[in-house]
Protein backbone atom coordinates (compact mmCIF):
# COMPACT_ATOMS: atom_id res chain seq x y z
CA UNK A 1 0.00 0.00 0.00
CA UNK A 2 1.36 3.36 -0.97
CA UNK A 3 2.18 5.69 1.92
CA UNK A 4 -0.24 8.52 2.24
CA UNK A 5 1.27 11.84 1.15
CA UNK A 6 1.21 14.45 3.89
CA UNK A 7 -1.03 17.47 3.28
CA UNK A 8 0.72 20.07 1.15
CA UNK A 9 1.51 22.49 3.99
CA UNK A 10 3.62 19.86 5.70
CA UNK A 11 5.73 19.11 2.66
CA UNK A 12 9.27 20.45 2.80
CA UNK A 13 8.89 21.96 -0.65
CA UNK A 14 6.22 24.39 0.49
CA UNK A 15 7.69 25.38 3.86
CA UNK A 16 9.59 28.43 2.61
CA UNK A 17 6.51 29.75 0.85
CA UNK A 18 4.47 29.24 3.98
CA UNK A 19 7.08 31.11 5.98
CA UNK A 20 7.06 33.93 3.45
CA UNK A 21 3.28 34.06 3.19
CA UNK A 22 2.73 36.79 5.82
CA UNK A 23 5.35 39.01 4.19
CA UNK A 24 3.91 38.45 0.72
CA UNK A 25 0.34 39.07 1.87
CA UNK A 26 1.26 42.31 3.65
CA UNK A 27 3.08 43.66 0.64
CA UNK A 28 0.29 42.56 -1.70
CA UNK A 29 -2.29 44.38 0.38
CA UNK A 30 -0.34 47.53 1.21
CA UNK A 31 1.90 48.00 -1.82
CA UNK A 32 0.94 46.00 -4.90
CA UNK A 33 -2.85 46.35 -4.69
CA UNK A 34 -2.72 50.11 -4.04
CA UNK A 35 -0.28 50.51 -6.90
CA UNK A 36 -2.64 48.72 -9.27
CA UNK A 37 -5.48 50.90 -8.06
CA UNK A 38 -3.24 53.92 -8.52
CA UNK A 39 -2.47 52.80 -12.07
CA UNK A 40 -6.18 52.53 -12.81
CA UNK A 41 -6.85 55.94 -11.27
CA UNK A 42 -4.19 57.52 -13.42
CA UNK A 43 -6.45 56.75 -16.41
CA UNK A 44 -9.48 58.40 -14.87
CA UNK A 45 -10.42 62.00 -14.22
CA UNK A 46 -10.74 61.28 -10.50
CA UNK A 47 -11.05 64.35 -8.29
CA UNK A 48 -11.43 64.02 -4.55
CA UNK A 49 -14.36 66.42 -4.39
CA UNK A 50 -16.36 64.43 -6.97
CA UNK A 51 -16.31 60.74 -5.94
CA UNK A 52 -18.28 59.58 -9.00
CA UNK A 53 -15.44 60.78 -11.25
CA UNK A 54 -13.50 57.66 -10.18
CA UNK A 55 -15.41 55.79 -12.91
CA UNK A 56 -14.77 58.40 -15.56
CA UNK A 57 -12.27 56.76 -17.91
CA UNK A 58 -10.17 59.31 -19.75
CA UNK A 59 -7.53 57.10 -21.29
CA UNK A 60 -4.13 58.68 -21.58
CA UNK A 61 -5.35 62.22 -21.05
CA UNK A 62 -3.66 62.64 -17.65
CA UNK A 63 -0.36 61.52 -19.08
CA UNK A 64 -0.73 63.73 -22.14
CA UNK A 65 -1.54 66.62 -19.88
CA UNK A 66 1.42 66.21 -17.53
CA UNK A 67 3.82 65.59 -20.41
CA UNK A 68 2.67 68.81 -22.01
CA UNK A 69 2.95 70.68 -18.72
CA UNK A 70 5.97 72.93 -18.28
CA UNK A 71 5.72 72.85 -14.47
CA UNK A 72 5.93 69.08 -14.47
CA UNK A 73 9.05 69.00 -16.61
CA UNK A 74 10.67 71.72 -14.52
CA UNK A 75 10.03 69.73 -11.33
CA UNK A 76 11.16 66.51 -13.05
CA UNK A 77 14.37 68.06 -14.32
CA UNK A 78 15.03 69.68 -10.97
CA UNK A 79 14.54 66.33 -9.23
CA UNK A 80 17.07 64.64 -11.53
CA UNK A 81 19.60 67.43 -11.04
CA UNK A 82 18.93 67.46 -7.29
CA UNK A 83 19.55 63.70 -7.04
CA UNK A 84 22.62 63.76 -9.25
CA UNK A 85 24.28 66.56 -7.31
CA UNK A 86 23.25 65.23 -3.90
CA UNK A 87 24.30 61.62 -4.51
CA UNK A 88 27.65 62.60 -6.02
CA UNK A 89 28.43 65.00 -3.22
CA UNK A 90 27.39 62.42 -0.63
CA UNK A 91 29.70 59.87 -2.24
CA UNK A 92 32.65 62.27 -2.43
CA UNK A 93 32.22 63.63 1.09
CA UNK A 94 31.51 60.16 2.44
CA UNK A 95 34.69 58.82 0.86
CA UNK A 96 36.69 61.76 2.17
CA UNK A 97 35.31 61.38 5.67
CA UNK A 98 35.91 57.62 5.69
CA UNK A 99 39.54 58.07 4.60
CA UNK A 100 39.99 60.83 7.16
CA UNK A 101 38.60 58.88 10.07
CA UNK A 102 40.47 55.74 8.99
CA UNK A 103 43.69 57.73 9.42
CA UNK A 104 42.91 58.90 12.92
CA UNK A 105 43.78 56.49 15.68
CA UNK A 106 43.05 58.54 18.77
CA UNK A 107 39.35 59.14 19.43
CA UNK A 108 38.25 57.24 16.34
CA UNK A 109 35.36 55.52 18.06
CA UNK A 110 33.91 58.82 19.30
CA UNK A 111 34.27 60.38 15.86
CA UNK A 112 32.49 57.45 14.31
CA UNK A 113 29.61 57.83 16.71
CA UNK A 114 29.33 61.57 16.09
CA UNK A 115 29.40 60.87 12.39
CA UNK A 116 26.30 58.71 12.75
CA UNK A 117 24.47 61.63 14.29
CA UNK A 118 22.63 62.77 11.15
CA UNK A 119 21.35 59.25 10.54
CA UNK A 120 19.34 59.44 13.74
CA UNK A 121 17.52 62.57 12.66
CA UNK A 122 14.23 62.03 10.96
CA UNK A 123 14.08 63.90 7.64
CA UNK A 124 11.40 66.12 9.09
CA UNK A 125 13.80 67.20 11.85
CA UNK A 126 16.61 67.79 9.38
CA UNK A 127 14.24 69.98 7.41
CA UNK A 128 13.15 71.89 10.50
CA UNK A 129 16.72 72.30 11.68
CA UNK A 130 17.83 73.82 8.40
CA UNK A 131 14.70 75.92 8.06
CA UNK A 132 15.92 77.40 11.34
CA UNK A 133 19.59 77.64 10.32
CA UNK A 134 18.82 79.26 6.96
CA UNK A 135 16.06 81.58 8.20
CA UNK A 136 16.88 85.02 6.82
CA UNK A 137 15.86 86.89 9.96
CA UNK A 138 16.78 84.74 12.97
CA UNK A 139 18.81 81.91 11.41
CA UNK A 140 22.15 81.07 12.95
CA UNK A 141 23.88 81.39 9.58
CA UNK A 142 22.86 84.99 8.91
CA UNK A 143 23.40 85.85 12.57
CA UNK A 144 26.93 84.45 12.41
CA UNK A 145 27.71 86.17 9.11
CA UNK A 146 26.46 89.48 10.46
CA UNK A 147 28.35 89.14 13.75
CA UNK A 148 31.54 88.38 11.87
CA UNK A 149 30.91 91.38 9.67
CA UNK A 150 30.83 89.28 6.50
CA UNK A 151 27.42 90.50 5.46
CA UNK A 152 25.26 93.38 6.55
CA UNK A 153 21.93 92.45 5.05
CA UNK A 154 19.74 89.43 5.61
CA UNK A 155 20.66 86.87 2.94
CA UNK A 156 17.42 85.25 1.69
CA UNK A 157 18.68 81.65 1.82
CA UNK A 158 15.26 80.08 1.45
CA UNK A 159 13.75 82.63 -0.92
CA UNK A 160 16.30 83.26 -3.65
CA UNK A 161 16.07 80.81 -6.53
CA UNK A 162 19.67 79.59 -6.39
CA UNK A 163 20.20 79.88 -2.66
CA UNK A 164 16.99 78.01 -1.86
CA UNK A 165 18.06 75.11 -4.08
CA UNK A 166 21.50 75.21 -2.52
CA UNK A 167 19.90 75.08 0.93
CA UNK A 168 17.78 72.02 0.25
CA UNK A 169 20.73 70.20 -1.33
CA UNK A 170 22.84 71.12 1.69
CA UNK A 171 20.23 69.67 4.04
CA UNK A 172 19.94 66.50 1.97
CA UNK A 173 23.71 66.03 1.83
CA UNK A 174 24.02 66.73 5.56
CA UNK A 175 21.49 64.02 6.29
CA UNK A 176 22.73 61.26 4.04
CA UNK A 177 26.49 61.57 3.72
CA UNK A 178 26.97 59.45 6.83
CA UNK A 179 25.40 56.44 5.07
CA UNK A 180 28.30 56.55 2.63
CA UNK A 181 30.90 57.41 5.25
CA UNK A 182 29.91 54.53 7.51
CA UNK A 183 29.70 51.88 4.84
CA UNK A 184 32.96 52.98 3.21
CA UNK A 185 34.65 53.01 6.60
CA UNK A 186 33.44 49.45 7.16
CA UNK A 187 34.95 48.66 3.76
CA UNK A 188 38.29 50.19 4.72
CA UNK A 189 38.35 48.16 7.92
CA UNK A 190 37.67 44.96 6.00
CA UNK A 191 40.46 45.65 3.54
CA UNK A 192 43.33 43.13 3.45
CA UNK A 193 46.73 44.65 4.27
CA UNK A 194 48.90 42.54 1.97
CA UNK A 195 48.16 44.17 -1.40
CA UNK A 196 48.79 47.59 0.15
CA UNK A 197 52.18 46.53 1.50
CA UNK A 198 53.09 44.86 -1.77
CA UNK A 199 52.21 47.97 -3.76
CA UNK A 200 54.33 50.11 -1.47
CA UNK A 201 57.26 47.75 -1.83
CA UNK A 202 56.85 47.94 -5.60
CA UNK A 203 57.16 51.72 -5.37
CA UNK A 204 53.60 52.91 -5.92
CA UNK A 205 52.87 56.42 -4.70
CA UNK A 206 49.90 56.98 -2.37
CA UNK A 207 47.66 58.16 -5.22
CA UNK A 208 48.39 55.03 -7.28
CA UNK A 209 47.71 52.83 -4.27
CA UNK A 210 44.41 54.59 -3.73
CA UNK A 211 43.39 54.58 -7.38
CA UNK A 212 44.28 50.98 -8.20
CA UNK A 213 43.85 49.10 -4.93
CA UNK A 214 41.76 50.94 -2.34
CA UNK A 215 39.11 52.33 -4.67
CA UNK A 216 38.36 49.10 -6.59
CA UNK A 217 38.10 47.30 -3.27
CA UNK A 218 35.65 49.89 -1.98
CA UNK A 219 33.41 49.87 -5.05
CA UNK A 220 31.02 47.15 -3.81
CA UNK A 221 30.58 49.18 -0.63
CA UNK A 222 29.90 52.28 -2.70
CA UNK A 223 27.19 50.42 -4.60
CA UNK A 224 25.63 49.07 -1.40
CA UNK A 225 25.45 52.62 -0.14
CA UNK A 226 24.04 53.82 -3.48
CA UNK A 227 21.46 51.02 -3.49
CA UNK A 228 20.39 51.79 0.08
CA UNK A 229 20.22 55.47 -0.77
CA UNK A 230 18.25 54.97 -3.94
CA UNK A 231 15.64 53.13 -1.87
CA UNK A 232 14.91 56.23 0.14
CA UNK A 233 15.73 59.20 -2.10
CA UNK A 234 12.12 60.26 -1.81
CA UNK A 235 12.74 61.13 1.83
CA UNK A 236 13.87 64.46 0.37
CA UNK A 237 10.16 65.21 0.15
CA UNK A 238 9.99 65.59 3.94
CA UNK A 239 12.93 67.98 4.00
CA UNK A 240 11.67 70.17 1.19
CA UNK A 241 8.11 70.15 2.50
CA UNK A 242 9.25 71.61 5.83
CA UNK A 243 11.91 73.95 4.53
CA UNK A 244 10.18 75.61 1.60
CA UNK A 245 7.07 73.59 0.77
CA UNK A 246 8.30 73.60 -2.84
CA UNK A 247 8.04 77.37 -2.92
CA UNK A 248 8.45 80.24 -3.02
CA UNK A 249 6.58 80.26 -6.32
CA UNK A 250 7.68 76.73 -7.17
CA UNK A 251 11.37 77.56 -7.09
CA UNK A 252 12.27 74.41 -5.15
CA UNK A 253 9.43 72.23 -6.44
CA UNK A 254 10.53 68.61 -6.76
CA UNK A 255 8.51 65.85 -8.37
CA UNK A 256 7.34 64.65 -4.95
CA UNK A 257 6.11 67.99 -3.66
CA UNK A 258 4.34 68.52 -6.97
CA UNK A 259 2.55 65.18 -6.56
CA UNK A 260 1.37 66.15 -3.06
CA UNK A 261 0.17 69.53 -4.25
CA UNK A 262 -1.70 68.12 -7.25
CA UNK A 263 -3.24 65.23 -5.33
CA UNK A 264 -4.15 66.68 -1.97
CA UNK A 265 -4.23 70.45 -2.31
CA UNK A 266 -5.78 70.59 -5.77
CA UNK A 267 -7.65 67.29 -5.30
CA UNK A 268 -6.76 66.12 -8.83
CA UNK A 269 -6.09 62.52 -7.88
CA UNK A 270 -6.04 61.13 -11.40
CA UNK A 271 -3.36 63.50 -12.56
CA UNK A 272 -1.37 63.11 -9.32
CA UNK A 273 -1.38 59.34 -9.77
CA UNK A 274 -0.03 59.69 -13.28
CA UNK A 275 2.84 61.78 -11.87
CA UNK A 276 3.30 59.30 -9.04
CA UNK A 277 3.86 56.58 -11.62
CA UNK A 278 6.59 58.60 -13.25
CA UNK A 279 8.24 59.03 -9.84
CA UNK A 280 7.96 55.31 -9.07
CA UNK A 281 9.57 54.37 -12.38
CA UNK A 282 12.32 56.88 -11.67
CA UNK A 283 13.02 55.31 -8.28
CA UNK A 284 12.98 51.79 -9.65
CA UNK A 285 15.35 52.79 -12.44
CA UNK A 286 17.78 54.28 -9.92
CA UNK A 287 17.65 51.22 -7.66
CA UNK A 288 17.90 48.74 -10.52
CA UNK A 289 20.90 50.53 -11.97
CA UNK A 290 22.85 50.48 -8.73
CA UNK A 291 21.77 46.96 -7.85
CA UNK A 292 23.16 45.58 -11.13
CA UNK A 293 26.35 47.57 -10.50
CA UNK A 294 26.53 45.97 -7.06
CA UNK A 295 26.15 42.47 -8.50
CA UNK A 296 28.83 43.18 -11.10
CA UNK A 297 31.22 44.55 -8.48
CA UNK A 298 30.59 41.50 -6.31
CA UNK A 299 31.45 39.17 -9.17
CA UNK A 300 34.60 41.16 -9.82
CA UNK A 301 35.54 40.74 -6.18
CA UNK A 302 34.98 37.00 -6.45
CA UNK A 303 32.40 37.12 -3.70
CA UNK A 304 29.81 34.40 -3.23
CA UNK A 305 26.81 34.54 -5.51
Amino acid at each position, binding site marked *: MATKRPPFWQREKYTPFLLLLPAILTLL*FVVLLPLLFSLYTSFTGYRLIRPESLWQWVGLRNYQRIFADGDFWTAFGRTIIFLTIALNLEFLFGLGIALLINKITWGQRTLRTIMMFPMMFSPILVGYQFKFVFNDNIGILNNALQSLGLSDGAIPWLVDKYLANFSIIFAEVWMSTSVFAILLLAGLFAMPRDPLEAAKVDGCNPWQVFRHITLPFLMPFVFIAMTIRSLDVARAYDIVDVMTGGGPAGRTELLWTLIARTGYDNARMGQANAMAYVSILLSIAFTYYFFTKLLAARKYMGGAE
Partner: protein
Amino acid sequence: MKNGKLRKQIGAIATWVLTFILMVIICVPGLWVVLTAFRPNGEVLAKPPVWIPENPSLNNFAKIFGFGADQVAIPVPAYFANSLIIALTSTAIALLIGMSGGYAFARYRFRFKNGLFLGLMLSRTVPGIALSLPIFMIWSRIGLIDAKLGLIIVYVALNVPFTIWLIDGFFRQIPKEMSEAAQVDGCTRWQAFWKIEFPLAKSGIASAGIFAFLTSWNEYALASNLTRSTDSKTLPVGLMDFTAQFTIDWAGMSAMAVIIIIPALILTFLVQKHLIAGLTFGGVKG
Protein backbone atom coordinates in the same frame (compact mmCIF):
# COMPACT_ATOMS: atom_id res chain seq x y z
CA MET B 1 64.87 63.19 6.10
CA LYS B 2 63.83 66.30 8.03
CA ASN B 3 61.60 67.28 5.14
CA GLY B 4 59.64 64.06 5.45
CA LYS B 5 59.05 64.59 9.14
CA LEU B 6 57.75 68.10 8.54
CA ARG B 7 55.43 66.86 5.84
CA LYS B 8 54.07 64.23 8.16
CA GLN B 9 53.38 66.86 10.81
CA ILE B 10 51.59 69.12 8.35
CA GLY B 11 49.55 66.12 7.26
CA ALA B 12 48.57 65.36 10.85
CA ILE B 13 47.56 68.96 11.52
CA ALA B 14 45.55 69.09 8.30
CA THR B 15 43.77 65.89 9.30
CA TRP B 16 42.77 67.37 12.64
CA VAL B 17 41.66 70.69 11.18
CA LEU B 18 39.50 68.91 8.60
CA THR B 19 38.04 66.65 11.27
CA PHE B 20 37.26 69.66 13.43
CA ILE B 21 35.45 71.48 10.61
CA LEU B 22 33.53 68.31 9.85
CA MET B 23 32.40 67.90 13.43
CA VAL B 24 31.31 71.54 13.59
CA ILE B 25 29.17 71.13 10.47
CA ILE B 26 27.62 67.95 11.86
CA CYS B 27 27.00 69.17 15.39
CA VAL B 28 26.22 72.88 15.28
CA PRO B 29 22.78 72.83 13.60
CA GLY B 30 21.48 70.23 16.05
CA LEU B 31 23.12 71.94 19.00
CA TRP B 32 21.45 75.19 18.00
CA VAL B 33 18.04 73.51 18.07
CA VAL B 34 18.78 71.99 21.48
CA LEU B 35 19.92 75.33 22.89
CA THR B 36 16.81 77.00 21.51
CA ALA B 37 14.64 74.45 23.27
CA PHE B 38 15.88 75.85 26.59
CA ARG B 39 15.45 79.56 25.91
CA PRO B 40 12.42 81.86 25.84
CA ASN B 41 11.04 82.71 22.40
CA GLY B 42 12.01 86.37 22.89
CA GLU B 43 15.64 85.40 22.92
CA VAL B 44 15.32 83.62 19.59
CA LEU B 45 14.18 86.83 17.93
CA ALA B 46 16.70 89.08 19.69
CA LYS B 47 19.04 91.32 17.69
CA PRO B 48 21.97 91.15 18.18
CA PRO B 49 21.67 87.38 18.61
CA VAL B 50 22.05 85.79 22.03
CA TRP B 51 24.38 82.84 21.47
CA ILE B 52 24.29 81.08 24.83
CA PRO B 53 20.87 81.10 26.58
CA GLU B 54 20.95 83.62 29.41
CA ASN B 55 18.33 81.96 31.57
CA PRO B 56 18.02 78.37 30.42
CA SER B 57 14.78 76.82 31.59
CA LEU B 58 12.49 73.88 31.00
CA ASN B 59 9.56 76.19 30.32
CA ASN B 60 9.24 75.18 26.69
CA PHE B 61 8.94 71.53 27.62
CA ALA B 62 6.41 72.29 30.36
CA LYS B 63 4.52 74.38 27.82
CA ILE B 64 4.23 71.74 25.13
CA PHE B 65 3.29 69.08 27.66
CA GLY B 66 0.55 71.33 29.03
CA PHE B 67 1.97 72.24 32.44
CA GLY B 68 2.45 75.73 33.79
CA ALA B 69 0.86 79.07 33.08
CA ASP B 70 1.09 79.38 29.31
CA GLN B 71 0.37 76.35 27.20
CA VAL B 72 0.49 75.76 23.50
CA ALA B 73 -2.64 74.65 21.71
CA ILE B 74 -0.87 71.65 20.27
CA PRO B 75 -1.65 68.34 22.02
CA VAL B 76 1.90 67.01 22.14
CA PRO B 77 1.22 64.31 24.79
CA ALA B 78 -1.43 62.75 22.57
CA TYR B 79 0.91 62.81 19.56
CA PHE B 80 3.64 61.27 21.66
CA ALA B 81 1.36 58.43 22.77
CA ASN B 82 0.23 57.84 19.16
CA SER B 83 3.81 57.74 17.92
CA LEU B 84 4.79 55.27 20.60
CA ILE B 85 1.81 52.94 20.11
CA ILE B 86 2.08 52.97 16.33
CA ALA B 87 5.85 52.49 16.21
CA LEU B 88 5.93 49.72 18.84
CA THR B 89 3.04 47.72 17.41
CA SER B 90 4.22 47.93 13.83
CA THR B 91 7.76 46.97 14.87
CA ALA B 92 6.58 43.90 16.77
CA ILE B 93 4.50 42.67 13.83
CA ALA B 94 7.22 43.46 11.29
CA LEU B 95 9.73 41.49 13.37
CA LEU B 96 7.54 38.39 13.49
CA ILE B 97 6.93 38.53 9.75
CA GLY B 98 10.58 39.35 9.13
CA MET B 99 11.89 36.48 11.22
CA SER B 100 9.71 34.01 9.41
CA GLY B 101 10.67 35.41 6.01
CA GLY B 102 14.34 35.85 6.86
CA TYR B 103 14.54 32.25 8.03
CA ALA B 104 13.03 31.08 4.76
CA PHE B 105 15.61 33.00 2.72
CA ALA B 106 18.54 31.92 4.89
CA ARG B 107 17.75 28.22 5.25
CA TYR B 108 15.81 27.03 2.19
CA ARG B 109 16.40 26.82 -1.51
CA PHE B 110 13.24 27.29 -3.48
CA ARG B 111 11.92 28.41 -6.82
CA PHE B 112 11.65 32.14 -7.50
CA LYS B 113 13.95 32.84 -4.54
CA ASN B 114 15.92 35.61 -6.20
CA GLY B 115 12.85 37.01 -7.91
CA LEU B 116 10.97 37.17 -4.62
CA PHE B 117 13.87 38.82 -2.87
CA LEU B 118 14.17 41.44 -5.60
CA GLY B 119 10.42 41.98 -5.49
CA LEU B 120 10.52 42.60 -1.76
CA MET B 121 13.29 45.13 -2.16
CA LEU B 122 11.64 46.86 -5.10
CA SER B 123 8.49 47.35 -3.04
CA ARG B 124 10.62 49.55 -0.83
CA THR B 125 11.59 51.85 -3.70
CA VAL B 126 8.09 53.24 -4.10
CA PRO B 127 8.29 56.84 -2.85
CA GLY B 128 6.18 57.37 0.25
CA ILE B 129 4.26 60.22 -1.27
CA ALA B 130 3.43 58.20 -4.41
CA LEU B 131 2.23 55.29 -2.29
CA SER B 132 0.21 57.61 -0.09
CA LEU B 133 -2.19 58.53 -2.92
CA PRO B 134 -3.77 55.11 -3.52
CA ILE B 135 -3.57 54.20 0.17
CA PHE B 136 -5.37 57.41 1.00
CA MET B 137 -8.12 56.53 -1.50
CA ILE B 138 -8.48 52.94 -0.28
CA TRP B 139 -8.19 53.71 3.43
CA SER B 140 -10.83 56.42 3.21
CA ARG B 141 -13.21 53.87 1.70
CA ILE B 142 -12.62 51.24 4.41
CA GLY B 143 -12.46 53.68 7.30
CA LEU B 144 -8.77 53.48 8.11
CA ILE B 145 -8.05 57.17 7.61
CA ASP B 146 -7.13 58.89 10.86
CA ALA B 147 -6.92 55.54 12.65
CA LYS B 148 -3.85 54.15 14.36
CA LEU B 149 -4.52 50.77 12.78
CA GLY B 150 -4.31 52.29 9.30
CA LEU B 151 -0.85 53.65 9.94
CA ILE B 152 0.31 50.47 11.70
CA ILE B 153 -0.57 48.33 8.68
CA VAL B 154 1.30 50.68 6.35
CA TYR B 155 4.40 50.75 8.57
CA VAL B 156 4.50 46.96 8.84
CA ALA B 157 4.64 46.77 5.06
CA LEU B 158 7.25 49.50 4.97
CA ASN B 159 9.50 47.64 7.41
CA VAL B 160 9.11 44.05 6.28
CA PRO B 161 11.56 44.10 3.32
CA PHE B 162 14.41 45.63 5.25
CA THR B 163 13.76 43.48 8.31
CA ILE B 164 13.91 40.37 6.14
CA TRP B 165 17.14 41.55 4.54
CA LEU B 166 18.85 42.14 7.89
CA ILE B 167 17.53 39.01 9.63
CA ASP B 168 18.39 36.86 6.63
CA GLY B 169 21.99 38.05 7.01
CA PHE B 170 22.08 37.25 10.72
CA PHE B 171 20.66 33.74 10.30
CA ARG B 172 23.16 33.01 7.55
CA GLN B 173 26.04 33.68 9.91
CA ILE B 174 24.90 30.76 12.08
CA PRO B 175 26.23 27.46 10.72
CA LYS B 176 23.50 25.20 9.40
CA GLU B 177 25.18 22.23 11.09
CA MET B 178 24.21 23.46 14.54
CA SER B 179 20.49 23.17 14.02
CA GLU B 180 20.97 19.95 12.04
CA ALA B 181 22.81 18.45 15.00
CA ALA B 182 19.94 19.44 17.27
CA GLN B 183 17.50 17.79 14.88
CA VAL B 184 19.54 14.58 14.88
CA ASP B 185 19.32 14.68 18.66
CA GLY B 186 15.55 14.63 18.41
CA CYS B 187 14.47 18.25 18.22
CA THR B 188 11.89 19.20 15.64
CA ARG B 189 12.90 21.98 13.28
CA TRP B 190 10.64 24.33 15.21
CA GLN B 191 12.35 23.48 18.52
CA ALA B 192 15.78 23.73 16.93
CA PHE B 193 14.91 27.21 15.73
CA TRP B 194 13.90 28.46 19.17
CA LYS B 195 16.72 26.68 21.05
CA ILE B 196 19.64 27.25 18.67
CA GLU B 197 19.11 29.82 15.97
CA PHE B 198 16.93 32.36 17.74
CA PRO B 199 19.20 32.83 20.78
CA LEU B 200 22.24 33.22 18.53
CA ALA B 201 20.61 35.74 16.24
CA LYS B 202 18.84 37.57 19.06
CA SER B 203 20.98 40.70 19.13
CA GLY B 204 20.83 40.97 15.36
CA ILE B 205 17.07 40.66 15.44
CA ALA B 206 16.91 43.30 18.15
CA SER B 207 18.83 45.72 15.98
CA ALA B 208 16.53 45.01 13.05
CA GLY B 209 13.68 45.81 15.44
CA ILE B 210 15.24 49.10 16.46
CA PHE B 211 15.76 50.00 12.84
CA ALA B 212 12.10 49.29 12.13
CA PHE B 213 11.07 51.32 15.16
CA LEU B 214 13.08 54.30 13.97
CA THR B 215 11.60 54.11 10.48
CA SER B 216 8.09 54.26 11.90
CA TRP B 217 8.98 56.87 14.51
CA ASN B 218 10.46 59.20 11.88
CA GLU B 219 8.06 58.66 8.98
CA TYR B 220 6.32 61.74 7.65
CA ALA B 221 5.19 61.57 4.01
CA LEU B 222 2.52 58.91 4.60
CA ALA B 223 1.56 59.91 8.12
CA SER B 224 0.96 63.51 7.14
CA ASN B 225 -1.65 62.45 4.60
CA LEU B 226 -3.28 59.54 6.42
CA THR B 227 -3.86 61.25 9.77
CA ARG B 228 -6.13 64.12 10.70
CA SER B 229 -6.60 64.52 14.44
CA THR B 230 -5.28 63.58 17.86
CA ASP B 231 -6.66 60.08 17.22
CA SER B 232 -3.69 59.18 15.10
CA LYS B 233 -1.36 62.11 14.40
CA THR B 234 2.25 61.27 15.15
CA LEU B 235 5.00 63.55 16.42
CA PRO B 236 6.58 64.42 13.02
CA VAL B 237 3.16 65.43 11.70
CA GLY B 238 2.46 67.34 14.91
CA LEU B 239 5.67 69.30 14.52
CA MET B 240 4.17 70.90 11.43
CA ASP B 241 1.22 72.18 13.48
CA PHE B 242 3.55 74.88 14.70
CA THR B 243 4.11 76.26 11.22
CA ALA B 244 0.38 76.61 10.60
CA GLN B 245 0.26 79.46 13.11
CA PHE B 246 0.90 83.05 12.08
CA THR B 247 4.16 83.41 13.95
CA ILE B 248 6.34 80.36 14.30
CA ASP B 249 6.99 79.42 17.92
CA TRP B 250 10.62 78.47 17.32
CA ALA B 251 11.31 77.70 20.96
CA GLY B 252 8.29 75.41 21.34
CA MET B 253 9.05 73.73 18.04
CA SER B 254 12.65 73.13 19.10
CA ALA B 255 11.50 71.60 22.39
CA MET B 256 9.29 69.22 20.41
CA ALA B 257 12.18 68.42 18.08
CA VAL B 258 14.25 67.45 21.12
CA ILE B 259 11.43 65.16 22.30
CA ILE B 260 11.43 63.44 18.89
CA ILE B 261 15.19 63.03 18.72
CA ILE B 262 15.89 61.64 22.21
CA PRO B 263 14.46 58.12 21.75
CA ALA B 264 16.06 57.92 18.32
CA LEU B 265 19.42 58.96 19.74
CA ILE B 266 19.41 56.37 22.51
CA LEU B 267 18.28 53.54 20.26
CA THR B 268 20.79 54.29 17.52
CA PHE B 269 23.67 54.26 19.97
CA LEU B 270 22.54 50.84 21.12
CA VAL B 271 22.61 49.25 17.69
CA GLN B 272 25.21 51.07 15.66
CA LYS B 273 27.62 48.15 15.62
CA HIS B 274 25.04 45.58 14.56
CA LEU B 275 23.57 47.83 11.96
CA ILE B 276 26.83 48.31 10.11
CA ALA B 277 27.67 44.62 10.36
CA GLY B 278 24.21 43.63 9.13
CA LEU B 279 24.20 46.00 6.19
CA THR B 280 27.66 45.14 4.92
CA PHE B 281 27.25 41.41 5.48
CA GLY B 282 23.90 41.27 3.73
CA GLY B 283 25.23 43.34 0.87
CA VAL B 284 28.67 41.95 0.15
CA LYS B 285 28.27 38.27 0.87
CA GLY B 286 24.54 38.25 -0.09
